[in-house]
């Protein structure tokens, strides 16, 4: 924790995932005075991944947590400052961009927004009430609490399948509930899940309600095509659906698309001079660690050009 953080920088990077850390490595090596602001865990959402197998250079795969730590160490080596704070707003003042945070205001010549996306919630009855009582958002944290018990995973993307594969090591069986009739996850992930006998799929199905008093007991389901309701007895439900961008603090400052993602050009520039965006927060991002890292580097290079002009 920086005791007295400086207040003025060349570049401020919002978000400490692969996009932000890559941007930080590039701006620091360009000898730009750089500050990265992260509100939670440096490394970002990738730190939830048990094993990252598609990041080039790690032929045997690498844990998300380790990948995050390595990026952080690399950035720190070149002098990137990191502060823990929540960004509450962004203001433009002539040549300066003011980043408002829970630890005061910081100013910079250029800002790179790389604050990523967050896990969505189902928003159904019982979800909030039973969070921590069988409803979970982190399989690597909570799987061991469900040894030899039946579990459901809601979602059909890579995060959901990765969680199902991890849970299958503990649970008696894992039921993947997906609202479509095919997965969004990468083919190799799907093949792995199908080869695991403890994993089953419930297609075209949504969860309407989570039932239970002191712990999750049952899910109320609905078949999307027929509208037919059904129930499923389980001990836990892991939610891995609907990533959403964390861009509320940017409304009215930076142009966003309907879903709340930041619109940029291929230089990672937003319409606002000196404000760049990188990674999952960008419109049409494939939301991969490697594409986020690439965005971060591109944004950093163009931020450097912007500052030197």
């Amino acid at each position, binding site marked *: *924790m920086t005791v007295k953080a400086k207040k003025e920088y060349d570049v401020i990077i919002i978000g400490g995932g692969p996009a932000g850390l890559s941007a930080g490595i590039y701006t620091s090596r360009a000898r730009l005075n750089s500050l990265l602001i992260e*509100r*939670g*865990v440096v490394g970002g959402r990738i*730190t*939830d991944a048990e094993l990252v197998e598609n990041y080039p250079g790690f032929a045997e795969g690498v844990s998300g*947590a380790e990948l995050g730590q390595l990026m952080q160490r690399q950035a720190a080596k070149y002098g990137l400052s990191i502060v*823990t*704070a*929540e960004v509450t707003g962004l203001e433009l003042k002539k040549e300066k961009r003011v980043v408002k945070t*829970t630890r005061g205001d910081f100013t910079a010549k250029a800002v790179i927004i790389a604050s990523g996306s967050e896990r969505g919630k189902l928003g159904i009855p019982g979800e909030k009430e039973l*969070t*921590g*009582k*069988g*409803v*979970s*958002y*982190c399989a*690597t*944290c*909570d799987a*061991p*609490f*469900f040894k030899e018990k039946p579990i459901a995973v809601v979602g059909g993307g890579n995060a959901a399948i990765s969680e199902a594969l991890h849970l299958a090591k503990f649970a008696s069986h894992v039921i993947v509930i997906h609202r479509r009739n095919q997965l969004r996850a990468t083919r190799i992930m799907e093949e792995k899940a199908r080869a695991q006998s403890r994993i089953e799929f419930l297609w075209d199905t949504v969860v309407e309600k989570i039932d239970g008093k*002191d*712990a999750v007991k049952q899910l109320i389901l609905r078949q999307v095509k027929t509208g037919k309701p059904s129930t499923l007895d389980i001990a*836990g439900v892991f939610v891995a659906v609907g990533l959403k961008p964390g861009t509320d603090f940017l409304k009215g400052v930076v142009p966003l698309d309907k879903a709340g993602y930041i619109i940029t050009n291929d230089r990672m520039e937003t319409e606002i001079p000196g404000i760049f965006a990188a990674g999952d927060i960008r419109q049409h991002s494939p939301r991969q660690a490697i594409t986020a890292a690439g965005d971060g580097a591109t944004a950093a290079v163009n931020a450097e050009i912007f500052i030197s002009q």
Partner: protein
Amino acid sequence: MSKPIEVDDASFEQKVLESKIPVLVDFWAPWCRPCLMAAPVLEELAKEYADKITFTKLDVDQNAKVAAKYNIMAIPNLIIFKEGKPVSQIVGYKPKEELKKDLDAVLK
């Protein structure tokens, strides 16, 4: 008392339930990444709230009795006890500023 104290099944009653001031229990396990990341934040808060709230941590792997009694099924999981009763529970990793709000609410 600036660092969180380790408590276990045996010492839980005396150190947590019989405490005169509120006690925060951090239910954690070595396999849980967010728990490890929350640890330094809790150490800082333990200093800031010294004499107001006692900070403790309990390894759910080693202390199944207490973990089962409070129905711990997700970690990180913080429970704040006041006069032997749980008054506030925070599940999942939360940034420091948010935790402070919950702590201050308990002290009101």
